């Protein structure tokens, strides 16, 4: 159980670092939203699954399941709403600048 939980924690840390690098380095709001949504959702879900393996069969696992389901529904919805806000306020998507040579 502990080894499976450690594997899920390592996955969560990996996705977390990748998402933070993507949010800091990407050039546009839409690409940043993509990095933020996918990496944040997968990293937090991996950490939750590892915590479920640690908690065992107990009432804490039920509460963790409720939190996981709610987070799995609401985080993509909030990302979608932020993207709609950015699109309606007139932001143009990033294009690769033309090559000079």
């Amino acid at each position, binding site marked *: 159980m*502990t080894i499976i939980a*450690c594997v899920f*924690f390592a996955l*969560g*840390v990996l996705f*977390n*670092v990748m*998402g*933070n690098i993507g*949010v*800091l380095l990407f050039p546009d*709001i839409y690409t*940043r*939203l993509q990095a*933020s949504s996918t990496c*944040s*959702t997968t*990293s*937090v879900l991996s*950490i*939750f699954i590892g*915590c479920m393996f*640690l*908690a065992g069969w107990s*009432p*804490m696992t039920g*509460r*963790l399941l*409720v*939190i996981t389901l*709610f*987070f799995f529904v*609401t*985080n993509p*919805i*909030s*990302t979608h*709403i*932020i*993207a*709609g*806000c*950015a699109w*309606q*306020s*007139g*932001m143009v998507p990033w294009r690769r600048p033309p090559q000079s040579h």
Partner: protein
Amino acid sequence: MVVILQYLTYFLILSSVVSAIRVFIGPSVADRLTGLNMAGAQILALLVVISIANNRSIYLDVALVYDIFGFVGILAITRYFTRRSNTHEEDA
């Protein structure tokens, strides 16, 4: 196992600070909201890890309420800003 949970707590605090950088340097409102959403997710994971490490289930209720209010807050902020841009378009 307690040591691993402790280091995971430190890592989550550090990563929530790193994703809050986007809130400060973001050029537009949507960038700041992206950073806020990501920092909120890290803090939610931090609350759950603290709850498992201390074996207290009260932090799980705190985490659930934190998630609900973070979602409602982002909904309210985006609704405010999109409505303002819509009225400007109708004026023009």
